[in-house]
């Protein structure tokens, strides 16, 4: 609109508004059409993939038992990836989560054995203790980052070493077996058994329910709350966020605390699975969680990211592992394929962005 066409800017506000609403409607419609198309393509591709895989594995893949198995296997990585997503959106990284699984596992097992509690109360109190330890470690990760501007790579690397060392020291290098059987339900049993039994399904593992709750809660936190918006804004332009009055230090601190808390939850589920807190589990899982986030399309440069996408990243990696196991591919080859898939996923995402760049 040049000034010539539009001599009295004040008077046509209503027209502009009406036009805007109409245009927003058009944009929305176009968006949903594109969305439907993309979803359609994805569903067709997914079904085709399952059919192919199912044939290759002689029908062993697409069984309730196996699919449940896949979900159970990705539980730990998916929960780590949720916390890691928040950190990576702020252009940070958390290398300590693998070690925090070890540390919180050992601490929780020792606490559970010494507490004298039992039943659901034991599970709840122990989980709270573990999450507090994880969040505390996250706080220690964050303080040098927000106060002194140290790179998170370094502070979380230091935490990775310290937490691992501490876990081994506390446990004297061997797993700490749980005396109580209160955690067995979370580790091995199924929820909704009665509901799903008529369909021939064993139910949904409790651990998977915990994972889905974590994913849903934090997906809402990221997309629907002020905190989530601030996390995205800080990742997109930290200075602009600061000048908009956002308490950047506080928000970034919380991001590392969330990541530490997620590590503790993963540690709790692993402990429940193996009925012991082990200083040996979880090694290398920080890199697995970063891989899930990256495969989910979150940029390591910060500013963009989605909890749900990270979950699907973890799922994709889990499915790949599972299929390769079913196909009896040896583990060395599996690593090669996984690495190649990660590289392929991020390359494809980058190319897609450039093609659709507007």
């Amino acid at each position, binding site marked *: 609109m040049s000034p010539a066409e539009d001599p009295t800017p004040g008077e046509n506000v*209503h027209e502009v*508004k009406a036009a*805007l609403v109409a245009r927003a409607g058009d*944009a929305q419609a176009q968006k949903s059409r594109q969305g439907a198309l993309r979803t359609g393509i994805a569903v067709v591709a997914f079904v085709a993939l399952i059919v192919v895989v199912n044939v290759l594995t002689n029908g062993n893949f697409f069984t309730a038992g196996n699919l449940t198995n896949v979900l159970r296997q990705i539980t730990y990585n998916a929960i780590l990836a949720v916390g890691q997503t928040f950190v990576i959106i702020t252009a940070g990284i958390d290398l300590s989560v693998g070690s925090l699984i070890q540390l919180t596992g050992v601490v929780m097992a020792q606490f559970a054995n010494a507490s004298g509690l039992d039943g659901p109360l034991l599970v709840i109190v122990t989980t709270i203790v573990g999450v507090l330890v994880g969040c505390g470690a996250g706080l220690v990760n964050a303080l040098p980052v927000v106060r002194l501007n140290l790179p998170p790579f370094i502070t979380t690397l230091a935490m990775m070493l310290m937490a691992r060392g501490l876990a081994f020291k506390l446990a004297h290098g061997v797993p700490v077996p749980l005396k109580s059987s209160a955690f067995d339900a979370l580790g091995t049993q199924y929820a909704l058994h009665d509901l799903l039994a008529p369909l021939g399904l064993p139910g949904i593992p409790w651990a998977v329910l915990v994972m889905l709750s974590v994913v849903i809660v934090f997906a809402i936190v990221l997309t629907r709350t002020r905190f989530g918006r601030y996390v995205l804004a800080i990742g997109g332009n930290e200075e602009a966020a600061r*000048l908009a009055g956002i308490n950047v230090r506080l928000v970034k601190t919380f991001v590392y605390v969330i990541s530490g808390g997620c590590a503790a939850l993963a540690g709790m589920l692993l402990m429940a699975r193996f009925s012991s807190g082990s200083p040996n589990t979880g090694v290398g899982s920080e890199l697995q969680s970063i891989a899930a986030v990256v495969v989910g399309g979150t940029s390591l440069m910060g500013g963009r990211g989605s909890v749900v996408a990270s979950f699907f990243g973890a799922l994709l990696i889990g499915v790949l592992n599972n299929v390769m196991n079913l196909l009896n591919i040896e583990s060395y080859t599996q690593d090669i394929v996984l690495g190649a898939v990660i590289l392929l996923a991020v390359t494809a995402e980058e190319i897609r962005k450039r093609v659709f760049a507007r």
Partner: protein
Amino acid sequence: MTAITKSFPGVRALDGVSFEVASGEVHALVGENGAGKSTLMKILAGAYVADGGTIEIDGQRATIDGPKAAERLGIGMIYQEFNLVPDLGVIENIVLGIEPTRGLFLDPKTATARATAVLAELGITLPLDRPARRLSVAEQQLTEIAKALVRHARLIVMDEPTAALTDRETDALFALIAKLKAQGVAFVYISHRLEELPRIADRITVIRDGRAIETRATDAMPQDEMIRLMVGRALEAHFPDLPPVASDAVVRLAVRDLRAASNVNGVSFEVRAGEIVGLAGLVGAGRTEIVRAIAGADVATGGEIAVDGHPLAARSPHAAIEAGIAFITEDRKAQGLVLGMTVRENTTLAHLAAYSRGPFISRAAEVGVTNAEIAELQIRTPSSEQIVRNLSGGNQQKVVLAKWLTGEARVFLFDEPTRGVDVGAKAEIYALMLQLLARGAGIVMVSSELPEVLGMSHRVLVVRDGQIAAEFARADATPAKVIAVAAGVAA
């Protein structure tokens, strides 16, 4: 250089500039902020490529398509911000990029020999092993000069070389320039300090609006004449009439003895409701730093800031926003916007609590206020969901304004509000400022465009060395007076 032109999107930065430098000559370039001096210099350095015109060196047509080409042609650049590697020593910096080698390995002996030869020729001594970060400004500058000479520079371009030097260091620099002149080295000398030019320059070219207005021998260019040529144009007529400030208007913003490490050295002034106070001054004088300290973007080390008589409790952007201060930053891409977010998300970022229920954001409330602002400010965007990166400069600036208009701010700090926006958007931004005045807001405006400061301010404060050097009422403020104070020629 003949008929050099260079355009940036929407702006013709250089419009047929021609000038020449003889060997053994110091040729000074003067002009207001934004006149085109730096662009010209960057073309010489190969940082930009000219759109048109020719460059001849020693009578030979030359193409400067990159920094390496400039270096090969014997052009040495000494920017105001030095280009030294902070942790390398003097010798390593001098030979950076042209390190002598023996086979695969560095040859420190030859490097030292070459560097010391140049330094000896200049008759200067430098602490050779000291990393650049621990050198004084003058020592860093000498290192830069040696760096140029080791590359056999015959033309050295200096941007504001004396800006950070003491008087004694300036004397030493001028002596050195005289010595190199005698050896046939030519200099292009860019400076805002008009009073030093008679001591150093042989000829002076005045640049204005991307054109070389006039070149004269220094003797034939008295200072007042130079200022007249720099200012040139009459005030452009496109500024709206400012309504007078009511005589009983309340004081919106009071700043007393404000100090900050960033170059704010005891600044006091007041802004009343319905008043625009313009901060004029040269780049680096401390104008931006003053508004940044008020907005809490930089930490103030002393002084008081009060809005409507209430002193600010804390020194943070958050405290300033709470007190009713809106800061529209100079660099919208780096400080004002999250480019990857939508118009809606940027508009509500500073006041998100107002569009939330508890911790949850209300999407409907956000869309409502954003569409209202889009209509009000006539932001040209397909919808509130457009990514801000995809908007034009003027529309991006309007999104920044939208962000601050949605709040309850009564004090607006505008830092270069119209930089890089086209004429139409400029007029809209001015009209908006008048609306804010009508609502009873007080405005502080920093602008490097002198006509804008003079045309859009009730009072003009001239900033120099982080202090307010002079105050002019609208009626008294003439370009010549303001420039004279800003350049330190008059007080």
